[in-house]
């Protein structure tokens, strides 16, 4: 075998047969076994950067073509999705798997964005769109320019599927989808923003599991990557997550600082809802830090933003914290009004744990005024709600204990606070038992 630069390059790329590889290694060993071989090893000076000017120019030319193709595919994507929507989901999957017109980067992005935008409004459709994205990405992988780009695209789709499954509270399936996404990302281009995006989604999963320290670690890793890549808005977005998880972890000062920092980077025109998320978080932290007057001022802005956004769950949360602030300030009638309103809204939104938490805070207000019979009614209503829905037996048992203690008029503030703490945790940890002795 005659060694040549070309043959050695093919050897490095894995383009030789096993027999050729063996021959090449044998020849190389013969060359390397002589004492002067080490002297052949060239020093490794960095080559002159300008030597890469030509490949740069050629790649620039091809980028223009790629942009034209992408623009065309992007403009077609919404129509393609609308066309699919006329079929059943199974038919949609078959179509995506069998027609090349769906196998474009732009269509996969559009599916992922649509799935993300649907969010909690339609959990089933959110998952379906993400599954279509996975199918389209796998099709696009067969036609894309390079395997690394294809893996990035697949990772994006699997990441979105993980998120859609997380929102459906299928946390195990979500974790599996994130593993698939990570595996593909490891074989991809190494795009720091793609990695940051996946870290941020994994942080959401960790938070849903109640593991806020892990969620915060993942967020900080994502933020570092976004900072290095100069990605202002995604960095701000991640910091909104930091603020939320730090607050959940009872690290309110840290949460407040992260919310301030986030506001510096976010492009609120691009994602107006983040303004509400930030404002709500600031008010929530201030209330928890024992600064109810300041919290009330911040909450007034949060209410205005929630009314503009017209999301019922956002408005219910505003009303809830308004009730809590009023209770802190000793305005018990206003507190009662707000908490009753929030509980009714969460009931309509079918959010039983939020109903439980608001009801317990309302019970604290009523108890402070010695209105035991109303606490009893409240506890009975909460038990009815928990019995009529698919709630874990452990949480239902805690609601029964609440009702039994209220019936005996044996409730005190400490027992209610323990129940509150329990329902906050039980929402994230199915199967958790309530210990009445704390």
């Amino acid at each position, binding site marked *: 075998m005659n060694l040549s630069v070309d043959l050695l390059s093919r050897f490095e790329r894995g383009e030789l047969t096993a027999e050729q590889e063996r021959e090449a290694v044998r020849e190389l060993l013969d060359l390397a076994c002589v004492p002067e071989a080490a002297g052949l*090893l060239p020093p490794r000076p960095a080559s002159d950067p300008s030597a890469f000017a030509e490949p740069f120019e050629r790649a620039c030319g091809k980028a223009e073509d790629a942009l034209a193709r992408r623009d065309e595919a992007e403009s077609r994507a919404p129509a393609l999705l609308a066309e699919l929507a006329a079929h059943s989901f199974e038919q949609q999957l078959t179509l995506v798997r069998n027609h090349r017109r769906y196998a474009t980067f732009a269509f996969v992005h559009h599916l992922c964005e649509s799935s993300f935008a649907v969010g909690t409004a339609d959990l089933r459709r959110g998952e379906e769109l993400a599954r279509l994205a996975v199918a389209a990405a796998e099709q696009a992988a067969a036609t894309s320019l390079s395997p690394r780009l294809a893996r990035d695209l697949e990772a994006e789709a699997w990441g979105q599927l993980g998120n859609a499954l997380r929102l459906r509270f299928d946390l195990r399936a979500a974790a599996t989808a994130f593993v698939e996404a990570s595996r593909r990302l490891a074989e991809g*281009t190494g795009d720091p923003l793609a990695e940051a995006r996946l870290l941020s989604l994994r942080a959401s999963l960790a938070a849903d599991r109640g593991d806020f320290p892990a969620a915060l670690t993942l967020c900080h890793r994502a933020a570092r990557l976004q900072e290095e890549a100069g*990605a202002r808005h995604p*960095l701000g977005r991640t910091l909104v997550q930091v603020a939320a998880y730090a607050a959940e972890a009872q690290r309110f000062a840290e949460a407040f600082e992260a919310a301030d920092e986030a506001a510096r980077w976010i492009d609120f025109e691009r994602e107006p809802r983040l303004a509400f998320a930030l404002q709500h978080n600031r008010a929530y932290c201030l209330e928890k830090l024992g600064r109810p007057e300041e919290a009330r001022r911040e909450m007034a802005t949060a209410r205005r933003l929630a009314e503009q956004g017209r999301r019922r769950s956002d408005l219910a949360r505003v009303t809830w914290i308004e009730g809590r602030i009023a209770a802190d300030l000793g305005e018990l009638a206003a507190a009662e009004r707000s908490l009753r309103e929030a509980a009714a809204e969460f009931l309509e939104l079918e959010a039983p744990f939020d109903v439980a938490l608001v009801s317990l805070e309302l019970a604290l207000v009523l108890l402070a005024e010695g209105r035991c019979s109303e606490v009893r009614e409240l506890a009975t209503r909460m038990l009815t709600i928990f019995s009529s829905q698919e709630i874990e037996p452990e949480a239902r048992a805690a609601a029964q204990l609440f009702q039994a203690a209220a019936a005996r008029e044996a409730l005190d503030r400490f027992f209610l606070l323990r129940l509150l703490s329990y329902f906050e945790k039980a929402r994230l940890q199915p199967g958790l038992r309530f210990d009445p002795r704390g």
Partner: protein
Amino acid sequence: MEPLYRSAELEPGARTLDEELRRARRGCLRVLSQFGIPMADAEDVLQDAFVLYVERIDQIESPERWLPATVRMLCLRYRRARRRQVARAVDSAVVELLQDPRRSEGERLAQRQTIDRAFGLLRERCRQLLALRYGRELPADQIASRLGCRVTSVNKIAQRCVGDFGERLVEVGKAHVQRQDGRS
């Protein structure tokens, strides 16, 4: 208060794709040269980075920072893939050469000596480890006790050493070919 994170300031004014790419030119070329990417593969690396940029153009606010960072990651992965491929090929070829049943005992011994001498390209620790692994075909636990490291580390260190060995062999081969080309 010192901010937790710093990010590039956005500059006003829309630019064309070509202008954006050219603003990142210096950074991209510097990364390619730092990694010593072969000229034939540099275009593929750049093309992957540019296509990805085009696909994410709406999300990337600072191409001047994002593009060199992405080219850097692509170069890292390129180097890792090459290294893995060469290590795999060298490892299986060495094992086969040492165990080839068509060869006499004397030929196999000579081959073993050739390989041992070729390990002279490596650092002392790698030299010892690979001599034990290939020369004496010792299992991981015995290698670990002789080298004073954990059994779980042996495979990891061995992989790194085989990777180094493969890279050195290819460098020696390329230097040899270039010297011969110079003579002719």
